[in-house]
């Protein structure tokens, strides 16, 4: 199953997605963790998280985006411009950040220039920047509007039963991810960060049922392992901007370290990270997806967010934390600054790095900084 996950995490031509398409089923791309996937499964559509992997240049994206923006949306646009997302039946864009919401503008414009680069259906999901009160109601309404748009575009009906079922099945995946997280919290660590994170990323692009089966197998396999991969290595936690490429974790683990946990847009964060299976399903989705205000896009909610993260980091029992942000990602960039201060207060060593999204062209620089951090941790000057 390792190869299945690795294949899904590192390529855009994913066999299980190709199989899905062969059965004349639809695939819709999306860009942000605040987009609920359950309505798509309820409609029999595969929601596929868009990635900019394999973008080796930015010549198309640079024609639309200006120079002072994050390389993640640029890479998405570049990949779309080269036709690699031609298999998509639609895309849901949302306001994860300013640059990401402008992907809507840029992609539509690119569609005028590059024939076939625009998917047949575009939907904009307007996610509020606060989780409660009128913002919660707004988000519920947005999910309902998106469901209506799915029904109209794809000529399907999303019944309450189907939605309940999709919630239940997605919760099953979340429970498995939580099992994986718990295994990574043990003193004896039997899975590397690269392997675990590859499996987590794969879950955002593979059909749910196939993925759940493989994930279950992986968990069982890990439980039966006897080697402690963290022995004599520093346990680290990785946090910050979106990272859907396990190369960064692989690079960190090439130093004398193991990544025991991440907070990077993907995966689950705690055992409460599930959708309620009772009551109104749309309200339940809204409650889950807005809960915890997990991303710095939810401005003014730093304290709640950092308290949860600090708690999680302590539970994972790490030696240090790497805080990274993609250049021009001001949201994570400045939140990392605040969190670095709070980690220091809690006597948790941290390293703050800035990087570009995509192929690790700057691997030497990053490796040097990680090596230095590990050395610092090993010198005994930094203690938990």
């Amino acid at each position, binding site marked *: 199953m390792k190869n299945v996950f690795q294949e899904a995490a590192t390529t855009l031509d994913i066999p299980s997605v190709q199989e899905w398409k062969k059965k004349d089923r639809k695939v819709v791309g999306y860009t942000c963790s605040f987009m609920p996937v359950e309505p798509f499964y309820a409609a029999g559509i595969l929601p596929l998280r868009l990635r900019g992997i394999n973008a080796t240049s930015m010549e198309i994206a640079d*024609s*639309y*985006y*200006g*120079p*002072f*923006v*994050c390389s993640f*949306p640029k890479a998405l646009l570049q990949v779309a411009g080269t036709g690699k997302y031609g298999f998509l039946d639609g895309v849901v864009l949302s*306001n994860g*950040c*300013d*640059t990401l*919401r*402008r992907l*809507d*503008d*840029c992609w*539509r*414009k690119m569609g005028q220039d590059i024939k076939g680069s625009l998917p047949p259906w575009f939907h*904009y999901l*307007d996610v*509020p*920047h*606060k989780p409660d*009160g*009128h*913002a919660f109601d*707004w988000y519920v*309404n947005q999910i309902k509007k998106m469901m209506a748009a799915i029904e109209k575009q794809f000529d399907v009906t999303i019944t309450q039963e189907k939605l309940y079922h999709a919630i239940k099945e997605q919760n099953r995946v979340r429970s498995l991810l939580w099992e994986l997280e718990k295994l990574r919290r043990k003193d004896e660590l039997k899975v590397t960060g690269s392997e675990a994170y590859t499996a987590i990323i794969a879950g955002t692009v593979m059909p749910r049922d196939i993925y759940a089966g493989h994930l279950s197998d992986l968990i069982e396999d890990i439980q039966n392992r006897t080697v402690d991969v963290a022995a004599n290595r520093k346990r680290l936690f990785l946090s910050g901007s979106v990272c859907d490429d396990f190369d960064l974790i692989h690079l960190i683990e090439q130093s004398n370290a193991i990544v025991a946990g991440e907070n990077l847009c993907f995966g689950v964060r705690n055992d409460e990270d599930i959708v309620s299976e009772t009551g109104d399903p749309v309200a339940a989705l809204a409650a889950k997806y807005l809960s915890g205000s997990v991303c*710095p*896009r939810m*401005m*003014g909610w*730093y*304290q709640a967010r950092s308290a949860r993260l600090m708690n999680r980091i302590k539970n994972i029992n790490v030696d240090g934390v790497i805080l990274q*942000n993609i*250049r*021009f*990602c*001001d*949201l994570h*960039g*400045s*939140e*990392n*600054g*605040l969190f*670095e*201060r709070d980690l220091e207060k809690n006597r948790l060593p941290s390293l703050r790095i800035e990087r570009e999204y995509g192929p690790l062209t700057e691997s030497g620089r990053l490796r040097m900084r990680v090596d230095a951090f590990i050395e610092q941790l090993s010198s005994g000057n930094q203690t938990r």
Partner: protein
Amino acid sequence: MRPELKEYNLDWLFASTFNVSKHLCNATPKELKSMFKYIPYVRGLLEPLLATGKPAMTFLDFFGDYYTEITNAKKNGKKVVMTTFCFDPSIFYAVDNVVPVTLEIGTALTSMLWKRGSTDFMDYCTEIGFSETGCSSQRGAMGAYLAGLGADIDLVALNMGGVCDTNSNAYAFAAQYLNVPYYGLDYPANLTSEDVQEYHHKDYRALIRFLEENTGCKFDIDRLREVLEEKRKQDDLMNELEEMQRLVPNPVPGIYHIMIYAGRFIFSGKKKYTRMLGEMVEIVRKNAEEGRSGLKKGIEKNRTFLLYIDNYALGISMVEWFEKKGISHMGSILSRTFTETAPYTTGIPGTTYRIDTTTLDTMIDTMADINARMPMTRTIRGPYDAPNMWLEDSISLAKIYNADCCIYNGTPGCRNTWSNIKLLTRDLEALGFPTHIAYADSFDSRVEAWETTETRLDEFYKIRGLL
């Protein structure tokens, strides 16, 4: 940070500068000449400002008042609320115990008045953890307040969520760093639908509750009405100036734009601001009657519309350069009010605001509607080519003011506009408006020296045959 900067309180410095400067309006040319020798950097703003006569005196007077209020806030038992330029401050003037401090105004002032601008304050923000790529318009003055070199901030309230991440993120950072309460109004991408209107109104009411809870302030219906009625007068005067700007030659001096929006961002709803606008109208009317351009030389060679903001490096270099070249400044994204009575809002009802002072509820809704239509919260919130957004606004304004060309000038920190300025430029060019993208930073001349910006502007006007 340079030690000398730590010697003075920023608000006190501004208050002192303006309170002294306003007396220069009575000075003789000889006295002014002598004075300018001693204030080589402040001169960059003061000289062109004083040349406007009466409006300058009022402008300096209310800027002095504004910073004196901030300086004395604690002594007077008032709470200081940190806010942004796109938040209409008139709500704060409807209560007794709140004083607003607008970061971007402070940053622009230091850029215009000080040799090295607010670069030390910007770098201080980076030192304490804020992203170095964050927008310079906040980072400047914010550094001073975070370093304890300005008024003690009691709370943060702003309105850029959903419009400008870098802006609201900076204020969220400041609130967290200072450990003070934060409230950000949030904006969906759409402007006119009923559910969006409802969202605006509910969000603004939640803001009022936040202000009441955190400042103990009480909104007085009569006072709020008075402030809004004053605002109505201000809108009418701005409308008159805008209307006259359609004349060829344009009788409005370019510097007025900066004075008008700077005043609106700090003194909206206050009588002295109304007075300045009245004084401007009087001068512009006379220019219009005599067919005179607002340019000092009196000859208009080109009419340029700024798609975004002005450049505040070393005085008001861009405005002065326009003066030198005979270019009429047709305003920027910051210049417009989007009140329903503005000349450029004809034919787009529903996208504007109406001041309704009938009841407390209608007044609160009015405030919400105004905030949702402040320059950036209106124009750059949704897709650039959606109805009533950046493209449509720019085209209609460029047409109505008979602009010959357009310029984008901003800050590299603006993720929002740098994500679609190439698209906008392409569309404007296709419609026949030569458009220049400046890569300078309006508040930080380390990014691009003014001389370089000037050379590029010169090149643009020459190559496109615009002068």
